[in-house]
């Protein structure tokens, strides 16, 4: 399925069902990642129950150094 992640169109396996599975697929699951799906911000615990589907617009952000 095609997803738009952080502005890029990305092809991922159709077997991925949730945001959590998407993060595992992208090998980002061992980091602190904050996700937004179609402009809906997810609490960390919502990542496993939030379904993803074709053409979803997903933002994945994290904390970086800043003042």
């Amino acid at each position, binding site marked *: 399925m095609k997803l738009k992640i*952080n502005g890029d169109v990305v092809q991922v396996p159709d077997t991925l069902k949730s945001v959590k599975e998407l993060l595992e697929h992208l090998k980002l699951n061992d980091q602190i990642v*904050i996700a937004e799906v179609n402009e809906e911000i997810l609490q960390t615990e919502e990542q496993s129950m939030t379904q993803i589907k074709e053409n979803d617009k997903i933002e*994945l952000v*994290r*904390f970086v150094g800043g*003042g």
Partner: protein
Amino acid sequence: MLPIGPYSFSSRLLLGTGKYPDFEIQKQAVDASGSEILTFAVRRMNIFEASQPNFLEMLDLEKYTLLPNTAGAKTAKEAVRIAKLAKASGLCDMVKVEVIGCDKTLLPDPVETLQATEELLKEGFIVLPYTSDDVVLARRLEELGAHAIMPAASPIGSGQGIINPLYLKFIIEQTKVPVIVDAGIGSPSDAMIAMELGADGVLLNTAVAGAKDPVKMALAMKMAVEAGKLGFEAGRIPRKETATASSPVEGLSVM
């Protein structure tokens, strides 16, 4: 103690986490600073690179309170979104509202800062707005319910120190919530002056991260903040235009 909203901190030095030479030096600098509050920015991940070392993951999060900023926002709406993203991590409920209104000076947009502060307070955040040294704006932010006011000493990253001590003093004197001098601090003496003016805390980043020896500078800043606070509490002598001898005048006839 430095109270901010429901929290209380023993350190009055808040440290930014940007621009350090490497994570090891940064870790040592954070330790040396004694800071309990660390600021962070929120940014998009590179999804094509699984291994992205991150300073946050090196920290014992039990020991530190995270203060995400809304840097990058130019409108209240953007700032609110960034704050909500940060809070969704489940790691923090404080936010430094930073809405830049001028790319050259990086000075904050007062109208958008005020709006973002109002919105985030309604959402239940502990809100620390970064503001210019505008006395009236500081009052308006406090009236909204901001949990601390963070006036700039001088432009972000400039190291110019405190360019308007008079306005800072006005803000400090009128404000009941903590005043944390944020941005522009270049040297320990700048931090000490802020505290001697009566500030409740100092937030700095570049002054430590960009120093020749960040770890030593972090310690110097810690000591400066503590010395400045003590000096303020002790109450300095008034400035006089004439000399007054420290040694007694009596008994001079022995000469």
